[in-house]
């Protein structure tokens, strides 16, 4: 056997993965007569040993990720239509369009009846100066207001305030950053349980999760169907018992995982 042939076999030799016993014997015979190849084999065997030690590494993902992933699974299951409703789903868009048209027509009629007509000049003035009319308020603010409204509808319990305020502080302020093409999902914290449960929290964790984008619709928030295939980032406030207490959507799936111990003062 030549050194070149030995070189083609050395990896299997070192990894103890050579099936052909006769070939192995010839290779070992060569290593016994060639100092250089013997050293090569020694190096390869040492590398194999270190690699095997490295393979014993049993590093695992942080435990809070499990909570986040299982939360996402439950969210998804919660948003999934029940089995057998596929036929109804086919009609859903048509019914939705009809309902939207009806609301629009009704709203226009009511608007014309209830609101006195304004001179067109006001609108022109507003657009020109940018002071009277400011329809383009910050989208993030607008959505925060929307989320707050949803939040208020879900619970009016004032006791939730302390826990959520602490979560906001831990999460880097009350106004989450927006990034990329999905500012429609930046919200304030939305309670998932009663306010009393949030107020009674002594500590908790803020966990960043990625959710299917249609999860935002479950909270009555705008849902950009163009981005339906991209996940949306959210922060979930997890109590000591592992239960999710509140959520806020970030609209930034590039953000880093946030894990913060909260200390709410009681």
């Amino acid at each position, binding site marked *: 056997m030549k050194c070149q042939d030995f070189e083609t076999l050395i*990896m299997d030799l070192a990894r103890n993965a050579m099936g052909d016993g006769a070939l192995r014997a010839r290779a070992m015979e060569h290593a016994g007569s*060639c100092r*250089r190849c013997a050293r*090569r084999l*020694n190096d390869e065997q040492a590398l194999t040993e270190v690699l095997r030690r490295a*393979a014993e590494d049993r590093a695992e993902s942080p435990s809070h990720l499990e909570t986040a992933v299982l939360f996402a699974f439950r969210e998804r299951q919660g948003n999934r239509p029940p089995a057998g409703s596929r036929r109804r789903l086919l009609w859903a868009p048509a019914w939705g369009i009809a309902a939207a048209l009806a609301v629009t027509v009704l709203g226009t009629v009511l608007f014309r009846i209830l609101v006195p007509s304004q001179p067109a000049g006001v609108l022109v003035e507003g657009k020109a100066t940018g002071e009277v009319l400011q329809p383009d308020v910050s989208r993030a603010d607008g959505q925060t207001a929307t989320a707050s409204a949803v939040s208020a509808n879900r619970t009016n319990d004032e006791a939730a305030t302390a826990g959520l305020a602490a979560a906001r502080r831990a999460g880097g302020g009350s106004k989450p950053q927006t990034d990329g093409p999905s500012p429609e999902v930046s919200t304030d914290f939305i309670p998932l349980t009663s306010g009393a449960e949030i107020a009674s929290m002594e500590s908790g964790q803020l966990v960043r999760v990625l959710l299917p984008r249609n999860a935002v619709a479950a909270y009555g928030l705008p849902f950009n169907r163009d981005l339906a295939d991209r996940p949306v980032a959210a922060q979930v406030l997890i109590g000591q018992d592992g239960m999710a207490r509140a959520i806020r959507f970030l609209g930034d799936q590039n953000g880093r*995982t946030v894990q913060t111990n909260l200390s709410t003062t009681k």
Partner: protein
Amino acid sequence: MTPENASDIELLRRAAAGDASAFAALYRGWQGRIYRFALRTSSSASIAEDVVQEVFLALMDGMARFDPALGSFSGYIYGIARNHVLRRTIREQPGAQVLDEPEENEPDLQEMNGNPSDPLSDLARREMVETLHGAIASLPMRYREVVVLCELHEMKYAEAGGVLGCSEGTIRSRLHRARSLLLQKMHEKVKANSPERKIQPARCVS
């Protein structure tokens, strides 16, 4: 199909039907492997954490469509993880060696092997593994993936080929090259740590 694989597929089937406990079992069975794969291929704990989440999120979307006749669950889930690692690494570490390195820029194997020595025995056990992890992180991605899958995750060549989309022969040849590069990098590390040491190249007489 291995019993473990059968079990995974059964869990997947139940999870697709909405069974949260099955999905949790699937998560617990796989999160460690996916995390370590992502950690060793991206060298970033934060990317690895995100990849774990994104893999299981993708699994939620794709579990009903998974067909065991088309490939193993292992290949499927590692494949998802690999795609996410590549996407994140390219996006967040634009200077990293993600793309393949031209063969001609790599050191010649025989030339590299002209400095045989026994440096690994000079390192403490823990330092060796740390040095190895550093060396793996510095490999071009195509070699890094093969080392992580075949050596650290102890996959067969065929299984690794399924994940990486290449033949067993390609996996074998990449692993051979990867191991040579690892040895070279570890030699360099040892030399850097003990500059006074003179390594005498041996001559091949056969």
